[in-house]
Structure formats: C-alpha cells, structure tokens
C-alpha cells in the first residue's frame, strides 16, 4: 500500500515538474513541492493509522467551548 502511494506521488511529480522547470517557475515549484509534501505526509499518516488533525473537531471546540455560541 505504501509502495503504491509512493508510485502515485512520483507520478504526480513527473506530471507537473517538467512544465515548471521548462518555464523556470521556481516560486511555483517551491509552493507545489510544499503542498505535495503536506499531501504525502497526510496520506502516509492516514494509511499507517496515525490520527490527523480534524478541522471539524477544532471548529466545534472553538465555537462551543471557547466562544459558547452553540444553540443547544
């Protein structure tokens, strides 16, 4: 499963990188690599079972326990 994941991410990199390098878009290359790295870490954590930060839970916590704005 992890092997398949690595293959998919290498495929994505090969799909995007040649165009960026050819046009010398270094800034775009940096941002793309940053987001691809985040995506890879998140997928890896999901596959090997490490819990990820959940935006819904944090939103619930902020609205209910800190601001006390909930309806019920």
């Amino acid at each position, binding site marked *: 499963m992890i092997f398949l994941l690595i293959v998919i991410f290498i495929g994505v990199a090969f799909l995007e990188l040649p165009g960026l390098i050819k046009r010398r878009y270094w800034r775009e290359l940096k941002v793309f690599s940053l987001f691809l790295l*985040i*995506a890879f870490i998140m997928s890896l954590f999901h596959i090997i079972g490490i819990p*990820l930060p959940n935006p819904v839970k944090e939103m619930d916590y902020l609205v209910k326990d800190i601001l006390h704005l909930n309806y019920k």
Partner: protein
Amino acid sequence: MKLESEGTIRAGGNRIKIIFINIEVEEFMRIERGIISGEQLMFLIIGLLQGSTLTGAFVSGITKQNTWVVLLVGFVITLPLLLVYTSLSRKFPHKNLIQINDVIYGDYFGKVISVLYIYFFWFIVPANLRYIGDFFSTYLFTNTDMPVFVIVVILLCMYTIRKGIEVIARFVPVLVIISLIFLIFITIFTLKEMHLSNFLPLFQIDLKDFIQGTNVMVSIPFGEIVVFLMIFPYVNNIKQIKKSAFWGLFIGGFYFIIIILGNIAVLGNIGAIDMIPSYQVARLINVGEIITRMEILIAVTFLFNVFLKICIFYYATVLSIAQLFKLREYKSLIIPIGIISVILSITMYDSPVDEAYAASTYSIHAILFVILIPIISLFIVWIRKLN
C-alpha cells in the same frame, strides 16, 4: 501599480509617437486569463444555489414544516449581503478577494484575513465530497466503499479546473437546465401525492429554532455566494455583474423554494428524517406501474449540482492560494490540494450522523466570513475613501 511610459518608433521616415498611460500592470499579470460573460455568471450562481438545495435537510430537521418561512427570511437577508459583495467588486474592478484584502487591511493583516478565507473555501470542498460519497455509498451502491466515489468525483474536478474558469462557465448552463427539467418533471408527477394539510400548523416555531434555521439558511446555501468575489473580476462587463448576480439569486432562490414546498407538501414533518428529502419524494412516483423508480433522476441531479459546487469552491481555493503566494499560474497546485481534500474528506467525520451535527456549529462560524468581514471591509472602504 501604474505604468506610464512614452515611446517613439521610426517607421518609414515618419516619427510615430506612442504613449502608454495608466496601464494596469496587474491586468497582464493575472493568474487566470479566462473571461466569462454576465449570463454565465448568472448560471454559475444558480448552479451554486442548486448545489445546496438538496442539502436543505439540515434545516428541515430544525424547523420541520415551516422551513419555507425560514427560507424566505434567509433570502431577504441575503439581498443586502449580495449588494455588499457586488459593491466591493465594483470598488475594486479586476481585483479578486485576496487582492482586495491586501488593499483594505494592509499587507500583513490582509494576509491573515486571506488565510481565513482560504480555510473557509477549502473546508467546503471536503465537506461536499464527503456528502456525495456518503449518499452514493448508502443509497445506491451499498457494497462499494465511500472513498471510491470521492476519488472519482475529485479526478473529474481536477480535470475540469485545469481547463480554467471559461470551461466551467460554459458547461454550467447545460447542467442547470437539466436540473430544472428534472425538477419540473418530478413536481408534475408528485402533484397527486401533495397534501396541503402537511403545512399545518403554520408559523408554529420557537424563536430559538427560527434564529437557528435562519442562520443555517443564510450561511449554508445563500451566504456561499461570497465565493464569487473570486470570480467577479473575470466577468467581461463590470456594469453587468450586479444585475446578473441578482438574477442568479432570484432564479436560484425560486428553484430552492419550489423544491422545499414540494417536499413539505408530500412528506410533511417526517421529511426531516431523510438525508435527502427530495430522494424520498421521487420514490413515491408511480404512474400506472410504468413510470416508477424516478429517484435515480434525483441522484443524477444531485451528482451534477454537487460536482458543480465542488468545482467552484475548489477553483476558488486554488486561485486564492496561488494569489496569496503571488504565483504566475495556479494549475500546478490543483493535484496536491485535491489529494489533501480527499484525505480530509475521509477523516473529517466518523459517520453521516456526525455530519448533520456539525452543521449547527459550521453555520455559526460561517457568519464571520459571510456577513461580518464583507460588511467591515465595505465600511473601511467607505471611511478611508479607497477606490
């Protein structure tokens, strides 16, 4: 940035003087080069509202047979809000939301507001992916896992967004008109199932439920129009934006109220127990044992509408991130953001029940993005006399 320059060219012995004055440099450095027309903007807004129509069950659980009252109140509240959005886009023509934030709040605080908006746009992508995946894996393909549908939909969205806003705007009218035809078809065939007694008792709502219902109505279906601040600058005729946006809101709101009234008239107050009440309504169609099982039409409409909604928000997310980092193109960001959205959509809720529960807190925090920040922005523009 203003560019003023003067140049001379010698052509055939005659001196030709060329003067470039007041050329907006940003116009040539725009990330998105596509241009859409006012009519296409109208169809985009109708499509966005249609995408929220079938998720109206969030409100039906709170206000039951009086959902249509809440819908009308929410619609009336949205009219001045849309006026705020369109006047913001008129004050800053050819500037999208991220650039507007930079001008209004300054370089640093503007970035903070922009990051908050990116979070808001991005949150809707995995939430809707999850919704569509849950629907298909619960109702239609019960033996298939949810991630399969999520991945198929996001692959299609990636392909669409790589083609740019022009392509999205061009296929929208087709999907909107197909949805309208299905709506008319289903309304005609369920006429004999409708009972007006299902609307009783009229206006019997608690004040608290009424406020909550209105809040959900304003923040989930209607307030999401704030995403069009990212798309308004690509409309070719600036003067037409206001008119097109209001027509879109009117037609989308009309579609919405027809669906909600039909659902209440057929199902009454038990409509709230279903994930998509319209699906339950379409199941009841039975014309002489021949025309039956029309619920698949609702499933197809749902797929079209939610696909469109995901496309609009996905596009806005990618464009905002590219604008925030001041990139020259946004296409390379599409795949990483899509992968992160898929992972988030799989892990964000433990079950569909969780999802309905989260709508109550989501609607509260959306007030910040939908109502407060745009009004404060317009107020600051008015005080500082920015133009």
